[in-house]
Structures are given as C-alpha cells and as structure tokens.
C-alpha cells in the first residue's frame, strides 16, 4: 500500500447549518503537486484549514506519513511538517519580514536579528525569491507579502505545503515565477497542495487534481489525462461552455471622459499621473496592469472616492435638454452621489466586496438600500422598495440565499457578488465600473457575471472592466487600456492585440506604441 504524505478520510465539518465538508477523502502523494479544485463554497479552504489546525473536524481521520494524527492547532500542524499559506495573508504589519518568519518558532531566548536576516536571505536565494528581511510588512507590495508567506512556511522546514489561491493577487509574470519556485520545491521532495480557480494554472502546475463539489469529494484525476472541460464538468456536475460571449454592439456616444487625471496617495506620491481616456456606450473597456499600477485609484477617483489633485472626470449628462459632458471631478462621493441618482448614472462594483461594496452583517434589504436610501424624502428610511428590489434580484439573478433578511456575510462569494452587481445594475447606469468582478469566483459564477456585463453592454452602457486575467480581458473587452505605474501605457483594440503585447505595455512606463513596435 502506498504511503501518502497526507491521507484524509471521511472528513466532515459543519458550521451551524452549513455542511462545509461532508465525508471527504483526500490523498496527497509524496513529492507531488496536487491541485484542489471546486466551486466557491465547495469547502476547499475549510478542508485545508483542518490540516493546518485552524479548524477541527467534526468527524473523520487524518494521517500524516501513514500515522493517524490529531491536529488541534497550527502548532500541531507545524510539528507534523504541514505549512499553509492562507487566502488572506497572515502577517503582522509592524514586524519585519524576518520577524514574521521566525514568529512562533522555538529557539534561544533572544532573537539574533543579524543571523536570522542572513538565513532568510539565503533561503530566498535558494528558491529564487528576492526579499529584504529587514523590511516592515506595512511597506510591502502584495507579491512581496506573499513571498514572505512562502518563506515563512519553508523556513519552518515544512515538507507539506498548502497554498490557498496564491495566484489570485499576482500578475502573470509573478505567477510564472511562483510556479518555478513550486517546481523547485517539488524537486526538493516537498509535497504541495494548491488551490486555484484558474484551470490553465491547474493544468500547467499540477500532477493530479482533486475535486470537491458542494462539500463532497468527487474524485482525483491525473492532470495529464485532464483538460479544461473535463475538469469543469467534474466541478460543476455538468458540461458548460468555456467560451466567453462577445456580442457585437454598435458603439454608442461618449459616456465618460477622463482628462489628465492626477491623484496623490497617502505618501504624497503620484498614484495616478495624467490619465486620459474615454469610455463609450455599448463597449467593454478592459483595464489591465500589474497589481498596484493605479487601477484601484482610477476606479475610486472616477467614483469620487479618491481625492483628485488634478484633471477632470466628465460624464455625459442632459442639461437643458442638451447632452453635454459635465465635470464632477474633484467633488466628494456625496456630491457625486447626490447628483448620481438623478443626474449621473454611474455604478461601481469595488474590488473589496464585503469591505466596501456591502455591509457584511446587514441583510440584503439594507444592503440594497445602501445606494438609494437617500432618495427617500425626509428623515426616515423606507424599506419597502429595497425589499421588493431584493426579491426581484434573487429571482432574476438566481441568488442562493435563505431570504432577504439573511446577513450577506452568510452568502457564498459568488452570491455576494451577484447581490452587489445586481444592486449596481438596478440603477440603469450609463457607466458601470467593475473591479476584479470574478476574483475568487468559480468558473460557473464567473460566466454568470460575464453574461450580466455583456447584457449591460447591449443596453448601451459603458462598462469598464478591471481584471487580472488577460485571456478573459481579451475575450470580453472591445478595447483594453493598460496601466503602468499610474500612467496609461497604451490603449489597444482587443481584437488586434495579443497577450504578449499587453504584457509589454504592462511593464513599460509611459510607453508609446512606437517604442514597443
């Protein structure tokens, strides 16, 4: 009988009424990379959290290297050589990289910072990471933080690594780098479980794929024998088309014109630097760029949530019966919003759904009301219209929820996104800005979102789509704007460009077409 690095048998875990995992079996071979695949809420994270000691299973057994173990805390997990890199980083902001890495480890009474810094540096070099061990986490970019997370696990001598959606926040280049490191580690004899929703990543990195559906274990297949559609079918339970629709719509009028937009961030550095572009009705304008190139600031500045230091944001509006481009840039969200409902129909789906777009602990009615409660005249709120709208959204968008009065925190990621998008679309906006709308969503949910966006486009809305997956951007967008270092490095026609060209724009500061060509 083969001895597995990890063998989970009959694992069940419930949260209140939710059965997150039901009778799940999973085997990880020594020295392999196993991809864990499943729709949102299928219980992947939960299952892994039981390996890393965050949760304790209700039933079932776990064997590490053939011996049955009880993992009651992350410390137990480390003792068994299991290390996990969580979906949400677990790093202490005010400590340095090295301090985070040695956190919780046994050792001498004092910490010799010099020698730990050296050791961390060496470890980084070994696997090809570039880290500054003395840098404070709060000064780091996302990819740097992830590097620290991985080093943390390696430093502990983990033989078994679990990575929960590590690529969600990385650029394609960074993903390639990460995968190279993972392969290095595999060579080193480590066993790895990786969770990702991106099928091409699954196919390129893994040896085998284990699939969960609605908390149940479906099976494990060799990657070599799999392709995107077989995987999807196992995940969802039936075959689905993997083609993103691209309806041809005649370009409408200019809906939004951003002119010379400049913003400073809290460190007084230019987060946006002279950004110029227009968005037209009936098109999807994709926005690409390495994480942190100013996409977030751009979206928020357009939505009036980010202070503007220079330039204008013009919206198409009716004035005395004539359509004009009106400047509302520089005004705060409240002013924009005051006009917004009756005057400037613009909708915004922010990247941070539960932290910005919605109130996690409130129910759907109160969340739907968030953007419209001010419309009601007087001092009081009227919950009737939002309640009706919520019920309509549940029906139209097939939102899975026990009811309109369930806190949205309890909904799955995909359904949360539907609530948010549904609310924003319900205004009938002229401009719709969506920021990473499918991040963390499974294939099925993602396609539903794409469909919704395309519908808006057909209605003549100017859709601005910020995304990280270039394949998706190329398929869904009509034009793609590439950002680099707070500047627009290029605007290209999606049909006439390639991934490679986009990639070049993404790293070319202020690059013009000539330079690239």
């Amino acid at each position, binding site marked *: 009988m083969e001895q597995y690095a990890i063998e989970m048998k009959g694992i069940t875990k419930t949260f209140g009424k939710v059965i997150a995992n039901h009778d799940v079996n999973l085997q990880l071979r020594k020295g392999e990379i196993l991809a864990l695949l499943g729709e949102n809420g299928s219980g992947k994270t939960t299952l892994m959290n039981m390996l890393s000691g965050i949760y304790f299973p209700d039933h079932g057994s776990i064997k590490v290297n053939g011996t049955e173990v009880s993992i009651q*805390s992350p410390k137990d997990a480390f003792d068994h050589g299991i290390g996990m890199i969580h979906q949400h980083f677990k790093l*202490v902001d005010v400590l340095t990289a090295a301090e985070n890495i040695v956190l919780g480890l046994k050792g001498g*009474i004092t910490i010799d910072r010099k020698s730990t810094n050296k050791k961390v540096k060496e470890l980084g070099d070994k696997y090809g990471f570039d880290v500054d061990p003395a840098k404070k986490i709060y000064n780091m970019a996302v990819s740097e933080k992830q590097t620290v997370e991985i080093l943390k696990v390696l430093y502990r001598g983990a033989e078994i690594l679990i990575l929960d959606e590590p690529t969600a926040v990385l650029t394609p280049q960074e993903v390639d780098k990460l995968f190279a490191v993972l392969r290095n580690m595999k060579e080193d004899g480590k066993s790895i479980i990786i969770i990702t929703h991106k099928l091409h990543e699954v196919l390129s990195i893994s040896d085998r794929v284990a699939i969960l559906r609605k908390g149940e274990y479906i099976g494990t297949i060799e990657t070599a024998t799999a392709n995107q559609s077989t995987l999807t079918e196992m995940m969802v339970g039936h075959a689905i088309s993997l083609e993103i629709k691209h309806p041809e719509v005649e370009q409408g009028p200019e809906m939004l014109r951003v002119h010379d937009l400049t913003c400073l961030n809290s460190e007084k550095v230019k987060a946006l630097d002279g950004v110029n572009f227009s968005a037209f009705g009936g098109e999807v304008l994709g926005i690409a760029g390495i994480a942190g190139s100013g996409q977030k600031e751009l979206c928020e500045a357009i939505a009036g949530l980010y202070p503007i230091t220079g330039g204008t944001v013009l919206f198409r509006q009716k004035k005395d019966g004539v359509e004009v481009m009106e400047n509302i840039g520089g005004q705060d969200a409240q002013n924009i919003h005051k006009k917004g409902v009756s005057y400037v129909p613009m909708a915004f789906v922010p990247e941070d759904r539960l932290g910005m777009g919605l109130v996690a602990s409130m129910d759907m009615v109160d969340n739907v009301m968030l953007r419209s409660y001010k419309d009601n005249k007087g001092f009081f709120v009227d919950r009737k219209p939002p309640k009706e709208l919520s019920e309509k959204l549940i029906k139209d968008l097939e939102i899975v929820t026990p009811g309109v009065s369930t806190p949205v925190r309890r909904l799955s990621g995909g359904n949360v996104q539907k609530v948010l998008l549904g609310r924003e679309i319900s205004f009938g906006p002229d401009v719709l800005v969506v920021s990473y709308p499918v991040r963390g969503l499974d294939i099925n949910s993602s396609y539903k979102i794409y469909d919704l966006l395309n519908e808006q486009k057909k209605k003549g809305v100017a859709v601005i789509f910020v995304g990280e997956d270039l394949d998706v951007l190329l398929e869904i967008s009509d034009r793609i704007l590439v950002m680099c270092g707070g500047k627009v490095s290029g605007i290209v026609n999606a049909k006439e460009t390639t991934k490679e060209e986009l990639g070049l724009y993404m790293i070319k500061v202020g690059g013009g077409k000539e330079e690239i060509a």
Partner: protein
Amino acid sequence: MLSIILKLIVAAVLAGTPLLFGALGEILTEKSGNTNLGVEGMMYMGAVSGIAGAFFYGKAAGGAPVGVVAVLIALVVSFLIGALGALIYAFLTITLRANQNVTGLTLTIFGTGFGNFFGDFIAKNAGGSLVVTDGVKAMFKGIAIPGLSKIPVLGTLLFNYNWMVYFAVIVAVVMAWFFKRSRVGLNLRAVGEDPATADAAGINVTRYKYVATVVGGGICGIGGMYISMVSQNGVWVFDCVSGYGWLAVALVIFATWDCNRAILVALVFGALKIMRLYVALPIPSQFYDMAPYIVTIIVLVITSMRESREHAQPKSCGTNYFREER
C-alpha cells in the same frame, strides 16, 4: 533653589513609582491585545494583600520578623492577588469573550471593594488598625546606598530611594528588553497586533494572552503594594489608591506603549502630581491636577497625527479573538 529642585525630583520619583508599576502592568496587558481598564481595582487588591501579607507574617513571627522575608511576602502576595484580579478579567474576556472595557470597569468596582473591605476587615480584627511592625516599615524606607548616596546632588538624586523605586526601573528595563529582543516578547507583540496571524504561526494565543494579562495584573498589584507600604508607610488607609490606577492608564498612552519611555513619563506625571507643593505658581491647584490628563490627550492626538504604526496601541486591543470567527 537647588535643594528645592532636588526635593521636588525626589518627591516626583516617589509619586511616580506606583504609576510606573501600574503603567508597566497595563503595557504588558495591552501588548497581548487586552485593554484592561481595571488597573485601579487591581492596585487596590495588591495594596491590601501586600500589607496584609506582611502584617500576618509579622504576627506569625512574633517579636522578631525578618525584614527581608516580610518584603518578599508582601511582594509575592500583592503580585498574586493583583494577578488574581487580572485572572477574573482574563477568564471573562479571553475565554468568555466579554467586552474588555466593560469588564475592566467592573473589575475596578470589584477591586476597590475588595481592597477596602479586606483592609477594613483585617484592621477591625487587629483591634483598629492594620499596621506592619517597625522592622517591616524600615524595609520600605529609602536605602542610602553606601558610598554612592554621599555624592553631592547625585547621591540624593539617584541613590537614596527605597528598593521599590529601583525595582520598578529594573522591571521597566527588563520589559523593554523583553519586547525588543526576546523571542517570547516578539511572539507576544504579534498576538497583540494580529492574533489570527500569531495563531497561524503556531503561537498559543490564548496562553499568551492569559499569561500577559495575569502577569500584568500582578505588576499592577505590586504598584498597589507600593502605595500601602511606601506611600502610606505600612499602614492600611481607606481608599488609599485614590485614582492612581486611572492615572497609570493615562501614563501608558503618554509613554506610547514603550517601557523605557514610561520611566521618564512616570517621573513627569509624578512631578505634575506634587509640583504645586514645591513650586508655587499662581494658578489654581485644579489646573495642576488636570495637567497630566491634558498632556496625555495632546500626546494621543499628536501620535495619531503622525500615524505612527509602531508607537501606538497594539492593533487588536479591544477585540477578542476567536479562531473560527470570520
């Protein structure tokens, strides 16, 4: 003039020392992510138990109590009882996840009652007063450090205090070292900043929180003991802590959670407390009394303006940690 300043500084040191203990205890507690507003209560508990310990030892030893033993007993007992108060708080907030502010306030009520009740009770049974013997009293008086105390000016300024003053400074320096250099200190800071991360790093968050909170309470208890043994010279006085615990909480802010700085700030607070007794300025005494609080607010606002991430309250203070919460 010089002699007045000298006396002022000496008095400031004496007044600042119990504040320093209270503040150190609270810093340790807050570094684990717990804001324990029960400092006043724990100081009361320590105040009464320290003196009671020394008193009962003196009684048991008959005519000849050994000073050093009495000191040790006072120290240990006040630490333990202060820690007991903190343990109640810890159980409620860490295990039962009760609100930290409310629990702290309740601990203040409880501890004040505890101190005054037992002080009174023991005094009554002892025939009116709870007083330690002369020998024990002597142990808490200034010790002229041989040789050094004779140096002009510096001798008075630095080498004539009771042992608890030096002890407080040592505790502060050790704690500063502990947070900066030691492994456990680093782990503790992580717990206070981000318990979920500390947990995932294999740190036993619950244990760290318990130990820090309970030991912190013990240190507050020692601060209380200072009041009954030094400030009140070994006599139990009703209501003796009289707000020092709250002042200690203010001091924590003023010191920006830094133990070394706390030494200096305790001196400043001590000086503010007794200044009007030595230097008569033509302002109403109430303004003197207000000064520490105003200064604290100013420091609080300035640190927040500077957005200092490191000289600020540990981030998880005020929230309780539950691993499965999301």
